[in-house]
C-alpha cells in the first residue's frame, strides 16, 4: 500500500475503527465508512477529511440487516474502483447474565458479532477474489478463545467468527487475498465503558496501530496487546475438568 490505500470500514464508528480510520486518513487514504448512526458517521468522516483522507464517504446502514449487504458491498467497491483493505469492526457486548435473562439480547449479540459479519464477509470475499488482491481484517476477541461463564454468548459469537476467518483465510490464500484476525483484550472504548475496570485496558489507538502493522506484515492472527497470546494459550490448555470449576 505505497499509494494511498482504498479502504472500506464496516462498523466505522466503533472505538477501534475510528482510531484506525485516523491513521489511514493521515496517509491520504480513500475511505468508505459504513455505520448505523448518521450523526456519528458524519463526525468520523469529517475528522478523517481534516486529517488528510483523499475521500471519506459516510454510508449509513444497519449492519445487522443482511438483506442490504449485496447492495452495500457493491456500492462501496463501485465507489472506490478497487479496494485494498476491508475492515469489519462492528461489535456488541452483552454479558452472560443479560443474555440469560433476555433471549432477544442473546440473539442480537449473535447476530451482530457472528451471523451478520459472516454473511457480510462472504460478499466481501467474493468481490476481493474477483479483484485478485486485497486484505480483509476482522475484529474477533480473546473472549472467543474459550467459553467462560461471564460472557460466553459474546465469546461464542467471536470464537465462531474467528473459526470462520481461519477457513476464509485458507480458502482465499490461493487467490492472493490475505485475512487478518485481530483478537483484542479489554479495550477502552464505548462498548466497554460500563464494565468495571479491574483488568488492564489498552487504548483503541493501540489496536489501530496493531491492525495496520498486521496488514503490512501479512500476519494471520494478532493479539492486542501481544501478552494475550501466551495467556490465552494457557487458558485454552487448562483441562476442562479443572476449567469448569473456575470462576472466570
Amino acid at each position, binding site marked *: 500500500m505505497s499509494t494511498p490505500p482504498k479502504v472500506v470500514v464496516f462498523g466505522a464508528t466503533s*472505538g477501534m475503527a475510528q482510531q484506525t480510520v485516523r491513521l489511514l486518513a493521515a496517509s491520504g487514504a480513500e475511505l468508505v465508512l459504513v455505520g448505523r*448512526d448518521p*450523526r*456519528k458517521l458524519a*463526525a*468520523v468522516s*469529517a*475528522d478523517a477529511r*481534516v*486529517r488528510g483522507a483523499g475521500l471519506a464517504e459516510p454510508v449509513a446502514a444497519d449492519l445487522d440487516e443482511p438483506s442490504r449487504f449485496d447492495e452495500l458491498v457493491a456500492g462501496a467497491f463501485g465507489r472506490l474502483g478497487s479496494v485494498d483493505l476491508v475492515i469489519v469492526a462492528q461489535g456488541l457486548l452483552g454479558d452472560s447474565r443479560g443474555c440469560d435473562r433476555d433471549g432477544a439480547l442473546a440473539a442480537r449479540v449473535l447476530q451482530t458479532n457472528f451471523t451478520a459479519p459472516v454473511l457480510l464477509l462472504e460478499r466481501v470475499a467474493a468481490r476481493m477474489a474477483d479483484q485478485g488482491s486485497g486484505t480483509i481484517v476482522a475484529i474477533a476477541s480473546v473472549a472467543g478463545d474459550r467459553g467462560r461463564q461471564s460472557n460466553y454468548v459474546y465469546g461464542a459469537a467471536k470464537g465462531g467468527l474467528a473459526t470462520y476467518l481461519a477457513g476464509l483465510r485458507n480458502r482465499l490464500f490461493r487467490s492472493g487475498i490475505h485475512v487478518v484476525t485481530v483478537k483484542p483484550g479489554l479495550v477502552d472504548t*464505548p462498548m466497554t*465503558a460500563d464494565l468495571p475496570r479491574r483488568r488492564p485496558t489498552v487504548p483503541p489507538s493501540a489496536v489501530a496501530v496493531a491492525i495496520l502493522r498486521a496488514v503490512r506484515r501479512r500476519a494471520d492472527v494478532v493479539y492486542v496487546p501481544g501478552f494475550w497470546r501466551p495467556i490465552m494459550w494457557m487458558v485454552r490448555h487448562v483441562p476442562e475438568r479443572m476449567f469448569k470449576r473456575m470462576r472466570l
Partner: protein
Amino acid sequence: MSDERFESWGRFPKAAPSRVVPVYWRSEVPFVRGAPPFLARGNGRSYGDSCLNGGGTLLTVRTLDRFIALDQERGLLTCEAGATLGEILDLVAPRGLFLPVVPGTQHVTVGGAIANDVHGKNHHRAGNFGAHVESLELLRSDGVRRTCSLAENPELFAATVGGLGLTGLILSATLRLRQLGPGVPQVRAATVALRGLDDFFSRAEEADAAHEFTVAWIDCLATGARLGRGLFTLGDWAAEGLPGARPRRRRLSVPVDLPVSPLNRLTVTAFNRLYYAGGRMASGQRLKHYESFFFPLDHVAHWNRIYGRDGPLQFQCALPRPAAPSAVRQLLGMVARHGEASFLAVLKTLGEVESPGMLSFPRQGVTLALDFANRGERTTRLFRELHETVAVHGGRLYPAKDAHMSGEHFRRQYAEVLPRFRAQVDPAFSSSFWRRVEG
C-alpha cells in the same frame, strides 16, 4: 479513595467524583448517565480544584477529540472540545498554521483552554486564548445545544470563556489560527540576564514592544540587591520553518511519586545559581523548535510527581502595573522569609487586549507565578500571607492554579462580574472550586 486518573495536576485537594461519564459523541446527551452536579473534565492540567467535582458527576471529554473542519485559507479550525492543543498543533503546525495563544503545556484540551481562558508568552500582543475563539457549541443540562459567539448568545459566550466549566458542557469550538510561513514553525529566541526586579520592570515595556514572546524566569532565592534577578526570554517567529516532518523527540518520564521531594531550599538554590549563570553565558539568539520554546516541561511526562503526593501547589496572581514593583518585591521577600523555594518563578507582563470572558483572570499589568512542594500547614500559612498581599495591592488570583483562595478574596476580586456570571451558570453544573469559593 482517590483515583489518580481524576486528580488535578497539583494533586491537591483530593475530591473523588461519585460517577465518571465519558462523553463519546457530540450528538449524545450524557446527563442521563449521571446525576447533578455535573462538571466537564478535560485533561486535568489545571492545578487546584476547578477540574474536580467531589461527590458529583465528571463528564470526561478527552474522548471527544475529533476535528470537524479546517479552512486553511481563512485559518479557521473547528474541533471537538476534548482535543488537546498538542493534537491540534500536530495537525496544523506542519501546514504553517499555529494557535495564536498557547500556555506552558500543550497537554490541555480546547475545552479546558476556553474554560480557564489561558494565556501565554504573547499576552501583551495576543491577549487570552478566548480572544481567538470564533464560536463554541455549548450543551446545557436542559439538553439544548447553543452556539455561542460575540454575535450569538453573547452573554453566555462571555460567561463560558473563562467560566471554569460552570455554564455547561463545551462540545466544540472554532478557533482562529495564525498563519505562519511554510515548514514546522520555529522561534528565534534570546536570553538576557536580569540583575534584579528593577531591571525587569525597566526593560519589560521595551521588550514587549520589540518581541512577540516575553517571559522572565526569576531566581526567587536571590535576596537583597539581587532580589528578582533572573533571565528574560525574548522570542519571535522565525521567518523560516523547519523543513520536512516534525521531529519526534525522546520523552522522559517520572515513573512514580517521589516519597521525599528533592526540591528544597538547598537544591533549588544550587539549581537557580547554575541556571542563572548558564543563561547569562548562553545569552544571544538561537532557533528553537516550537515545542522546546513553548512547552519545555512537556518533555518530562508526569513531572508533577517530583513534588510528591500532594504537590505541586501553584500560586499565580495578576497585579495592576503601578502596584506591581512593590507587590512583587513583597511577595518574593515573603517566600524567602518562609524559607520556601519556588522552582518555577515566572514574571510576565499582561497586555491590554480585552478578553471576551467575564471571569477571565488576566488584567493589564504583571503576573507572577510560583510553585511549591506542599508541606502542609507551613505552606498553607505562606499562601494565606501571599494572598493577603495580593488583595492589598488590588491584584487577583488565578482559579486555574489555585487550591487555597478564600471565598471572600474570590468574591471581592471578581466582584464586578460575578452577578452577571452567576446568571449564566448552568443550575446542574458545579465544581469543587465553585462550592469552595461560593460556599
